[in-house]
């Protein structure tokens, strides 16, 4: 993978596109197409160093004139490629995920803080969950006021959740908005 040389904003090649879209589809399913085929503007994915950005076309064009070394970011950073070539979604992709999420989980106000510290969601904290969530599906976590808090993986399917004990994990934590404070350095460099 030619990541070291991708100091410029470049299009994703086939393999990279595949990994990114596969990852995204876990959370938003077929809506990945709507990400690219939006009616108001044309958006695209670009790779800069090891990070993938979701950028609008006119923003992208303006950023082209900037020298490569000096361009830090353009549009929204979705995630980054790890050194082994896997794609990791970052919390900065939450606006996109929250807008098109397939499976959603709402947690109770008292347990919001626990999730924001990086803990997984227990059955006790669970407020609502969308019907027919398969187990190990990508899930976006909301507060009861519909505020997106992060995303994770459903440890159990909806049916299993009903039968589960209060202490057991329902959603395995992957990323939450508390990372903006906890993990600033890793997020964006």
């Amino acid at each position, binding site marked *: 993978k030619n990541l070291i040389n991708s100091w410029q904003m470049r299009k994703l090649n086939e393999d990279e596109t595949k990994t990114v879209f596969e990852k995204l589809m876990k959370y938003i399913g077929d809506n990945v197409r709507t990400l690219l085929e939006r009616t108001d503007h044309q958006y695209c994915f670009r790779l800069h160093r090891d990070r993938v950005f979701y950028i609008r076309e*006119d923003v992208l064009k*303006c950023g082209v004139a900037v020298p490569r*070394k000096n361009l*830090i970011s353009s549009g929204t950073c979705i995630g980054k490629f790890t050194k082994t070539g896997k794609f990791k979604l970052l919390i900065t992709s939450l*606006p996109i995920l929250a807008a098109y999420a397939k499976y959603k989980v709402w947690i109770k106000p008292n347990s919001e803080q626990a999730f924001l510290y990086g803990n997984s969601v227990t059955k006790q904290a669970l407020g609502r969950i969308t019907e027919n969530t398969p187990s190990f599906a990508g899930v976006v976590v909301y507060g009861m006021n519909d505020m997106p808090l992060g995303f994770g993986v459903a440890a159990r399917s909806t049916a299993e959740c009903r039968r589960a004990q209060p202490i057991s994990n329902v959603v395995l934590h992957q990323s939450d908005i508390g990372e*903006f404070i906890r993990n*600033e350095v890793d997020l*964006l460099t």
Partner: protein
Amino acid sequence: MGKRDFKTLQEKRPGRKSRKQKDPTEVQTSAKLLSRKSKTRFAKRLAKKRELNSTEERLESGESVNGKSEASRLTHDWVESDDEGEDTALDIEKESSESDESDGELVEEEDGTDRVESFDEDSEPLDDEYTDEPTEPSSKSVSTNLQLGGGTIETSTPDLESLTARIKETMEVLSDFKSRRDPDTPRGDYLDLLAADLANYYNYNTYLIRDVIMEIFPLNELLEFLEANEVDRPVTLRTNTLKTRRRELAQALIGRGVNLDPLGDWTKVGLVVFDSPVPLGATPEYLAGHYVLQGASSLLPVVALAPQEREKVLDACAAPGMKASYIAQLMRNTGVLFANDASKERIRAVLGNLHRLGVSNAVVTNLDARNVHRSNRNFDRVLVDAPCSGTGIIAKDPSVKTSKSQEDILGLAALQKELLLAAIDACDAKSRTGGYVVYSTCSITVEENEWVVDCALRRRDVKLVATGIHFGSPGFTQIRGRRFHPTMNLAKRFYPHKQNMDGFFVAKLKKLSNDKPKAGNKVEEEGDKVGQLNNNNRGEKRKLSEGGEGKKVKSAKKRKGKSGDKLENNKEGNKEVSGDIKSKKRRRKKKKGDKETKEGTDRLKAKLVMKARHFAKKRNAKRKQMKK
């Protein structure tokens, strides 16, 4: 009448408050039980008496004392000092302003009556510990200081009480200088003494007080400003309208127990926080990007900039990204926002903030802001929130008090000029909706504010326009002998003691054309000199300004600049516009014409008329273009 009698009150209603109230006569005798304040008051009463006696002796002995003025000063209301500096300073503030208002009060006090309370003069002497308070030596040091003739200032640090007393006295002298001064000591010496004392009291370096703060503020505002720098400004938030509305956010925060209010009439996104049980920088709403903790004054440059949707906007010094995100929210995520900062570490803060707040139209770059115009020249609007000395945010960062020197400020001014010129070059005068550059700093010094904008006005084809902010103090068109462009009063200054927000300066420039006048003109250099006057050359100030002005007048009359607006300015009486090389040639020609015959002068006049018509045509054409 029985109810009015104090003792009967105590008997009838032995409540908590009545138990606290003591019979007035008791207070004087039980000196040991008094609070610290009144103890020091007593000490001063004693000292006052002693001084009165000592001055009488001095007068008799024939030493040079400042006559009636000193005696009257010594019998004045002494400042009630505590070891807590804040209380005493407030008293100075009140009393100096009161003394400024009316002279009558001062005359009355020669009798020695206290304005605040009336104590019997037959009070018992206090214990030794209180009489040993060194008010006597302080008064002596005061008198020696005021006998300045050789210009010596006592810099040895007296204690707080004597400091405050001396500050108060110097200010009184300065407020009515003619009558109260010592005839041998010039005003400068009094000012230097005051500066040294204030610097000592508030922990500033004397350069800042003497050459920066005292140059800008008159005496009655001086203490208010210094006091305001000791206190924090209120905490303010900005709602992120990309994700929420102010009302909903307010409800959510009130639900968490925060006590807040809308910030003011001038903003629809600001909130003031009075107190909060939860940490405001860590609430779920903050993390979700619904609001940002931002000072009220840093909203102002963006309000002035007024970015529209679908524009291309540059924030040249964006870190930590508060103003950049506000710009993006005003643009509703349309158009393009360039958030640039020269520091690689601080640019991460910009990234983090922009992502958290849901900004999707931002290009974040790490360029030196002086080079942005080389790659991109077609911005509709540019915001330059230049790095500055921070003299307006002393309340937030007290280290500024001691760390800034004249070299620092002049160095920063040079950098800021470069930044502003580069920003103007990056802006496109022909943009349909824009062509505006906003320059702002969080400092109050003239070198970093008006001087920088003045330099830009001279070196580029720009003009100042109204910022759109209806409050705030106007920028200086002239201050202490320096003169700036007469439209400089369109710029706005904000102060902590007036608007209760951090010190700020905002100037909005409109770019008229993309042309650059040729650099390296002699007239321009003189103009720079006028702006650049050192405080050391106070005597020479007048000469320079007169000389500079005179030459400028001539050039302005013959000036036929490319932009019509400058001709307009000439009509308004603007004689401060600098000319170019051509104006000198014109001057020479005119001189020749004068020596020649009448015919020659007529021909010249005809030429001038033709030229005027020609440029008037151009001006009208430009106006039409601008209207379109």
